[in-house]
């Protein structure tokens, strides 16, 4: 009876519209945030942070971004990698031009530029739908990747065209660059994620979220009740690209430290799409769960044989990882096609009655 709702009466619309109307949810989220902010930095070593947690946080943000566009507004996109690249390259460009500017502000500016780019590539969505649109967004993916590889201005004319995160401080603490500790970078990434996840949650439970879902569920009916498709879709593209742009900036400045355009290639776009499908379309929590699955499970699988003391050729390990991972995806889809978020909902319903079977 962990999730007992009985006795929780809502007397105002405010309470009813609260972000987590059920008390247990509130405590759970609060506990998770506390653990993430306090416990994890105390116990995690650099491997955990650098190899598992920071990438998880960054991809979560990108997944939330894509979920706003695809899960909520129903516009399938494979341009995520491109929009992330915009964020990363713009951050590099701005912070090397204005080293004094607070790097977190630079993330936001770069996100805004990514949003503008997103709007441009969102224009075709007025006419093109479904898988056709998905493939059309690949034009954005490939064009952006080409642009940053080709135009030397974006990488300050260095000979190889790789961007490197320069050292930057925020309030006297090194946040990016080699001297920034993994813990600091983790905390920055976590704060940004919590902030933006909250904003996303707020957006989707208000007017904008409802118009996105209306367009997604039935665009014609939405139009007839007065939701204008183009501005609504473009806003989705803009906000989604903003999230992806910030995630891209974080990827270079809080995680990898340096990258070429290959770091934002088509595989990234696919990966983020996998995350939201497996996590649950149209769910913020699902984005996080999906990001956890796609970033952590392969790492687990590749290390699993060694953990149980089996030693095999790395190539074989990698292939087995690939097979098991693929099979897991198919299996999970068969068990719960609507993703982990739905799975969590069902579990919650069960917990509500637990330990009673009915």
């Amino acid at each position, binding site marked *: 009876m962990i999730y007992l709702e009985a006795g929780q009466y809502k007397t105002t619309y405010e309470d009813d519209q609260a972000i987590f109307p059920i008390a247990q949810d509130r405590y759970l989220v609060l506990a998770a945030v506390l653990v993430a902010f306090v416990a994890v930095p105390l116990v995690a070593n650099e491997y955990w942070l650098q190899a598992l947690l920071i990438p998880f946080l960054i991809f979560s943000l990108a997944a939330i971004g894509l979920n706003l566009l695809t899960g909520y507004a129903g516009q399938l996109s494979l341009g995520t990698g491109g929009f992330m690249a915009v964020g990363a390259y713009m951050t590099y460009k701005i912070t090397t031009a204005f080293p004094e500017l607070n790097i977190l502000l630079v993330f936001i500016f770069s996100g805004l530029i990514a949003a503008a780019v997103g709007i441009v590539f969102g224009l075709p969505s007025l006419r093109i739908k479904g898988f056709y649109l998905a493939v059309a967004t690949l034009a954005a993916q490939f064009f952006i990747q080409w642009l940053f590889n080709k135009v030397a201005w974006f990488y300050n004319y260095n000979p190889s065209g790789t961007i490197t995160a320069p050292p930057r401080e925020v309030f006297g603490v090194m946040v990016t660059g080699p001297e920034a500790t993994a813990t600091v970078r983790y905390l920055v990434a976590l704060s940004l994620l919590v902030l933006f996840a909250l904003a996303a949650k*707020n957006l989707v439970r208000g*007017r904008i979220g*409802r118009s996105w879902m209306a367009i997604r*569920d039935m665009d014609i009916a939405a139009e007839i009740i007065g939701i204008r498709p183009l501005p609504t879709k473009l806003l989705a593209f803009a906000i989604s690209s903003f999230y992806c742009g910030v995630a891209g900036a974080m990827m270079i400045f809080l995680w990898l430290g340096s990258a070429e355009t290959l770091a934002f290639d088509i595989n990234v776009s696919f990966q983020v799409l996998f995350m939201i499908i497996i996590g649950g379309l149209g769910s913020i929590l699902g984005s996080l769960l999906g990001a956890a699955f796609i970033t952590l499970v392969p790492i687990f699988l590749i290390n699993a044989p060694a953990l149980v003391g089996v030693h095999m050729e790395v190539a074989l390990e990698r292939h087995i990882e690939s097979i098991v991972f693929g099979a897991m995806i198919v299996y999970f889809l068969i068990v719960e096609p609507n993703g982990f978020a739905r799975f969590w909902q069902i579990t919650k319903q069960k917990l509500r009655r637990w330990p009673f079977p009915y």
Partner: protein
Amino acid sequence: MNSNGKETLLQVDDITLSFGGVQALSHVSFDVAKGEVLAIIGPNGAGKSSMLNVINGFYHPQSGTVTYKGRSHRQMRTHEAAAEGIARTFQNIALFKGMTTLDNIMTGRNLKMRVNFLWQALHLGPARREEIEHRRYVEHVIDFLEIQAIRKIPVGRLPYGMQKRVELCRALASEPDLLLLDEPMAGMNVEEKEDMCRFILDVNDEFGTTIVLIEHDMGVVMDISDRVIVLDYGRKIADGTPDEVRANQAVIDAYLGLSH
């Protein structure tokens, strides 16, 4: 002002609409007085739904004009129509399947909400106030249509009759001046139909909403409408009070020619 001395809300003038070679509507004219309940009837394929689609701007007629609230439109855009206070329901329910009843109805308030996305992202101050203010209105409509119990249920899981009711609720939430109902009672059992009739009349009464509806059930039509228009093969063949229409020979022929 029309002949009855009432204010005219909507005037449809000489509308002709065709798809490819198929003539859906030809030279149809009629007007709707403010506060009236007007029924459009006719056999299948007579162009009834097309007529509604022309009124709210989803189809653009080849010729003719629609004059609404005194302004003539050759082509009305759908969202303009919505902004001007035209709402509608659909023959095949057009609810947003992935959303709850409450959210569906809240979309009806969309046009009246103004707070920009930054405030919404914060969900503070104006955004919060606005949500609550509109929620209050929506709850009013929910009470009116007696669907309090299904607020938080995704509409996809509701039975057919309930979905129809939610759809009406969504249309009402936008406080329309003109409500277009496309077969609001199709597929319902007798009790549900009675409920729906009551709601339609109450809406007309309480909110003063002008209603144009398409319906097949003659009994219902005769009971609730002030006036009836009959379409056949895209042409208007009769226009008058229920009694007048019932007595019209052309209408009788059109209906007898079919298996209804």
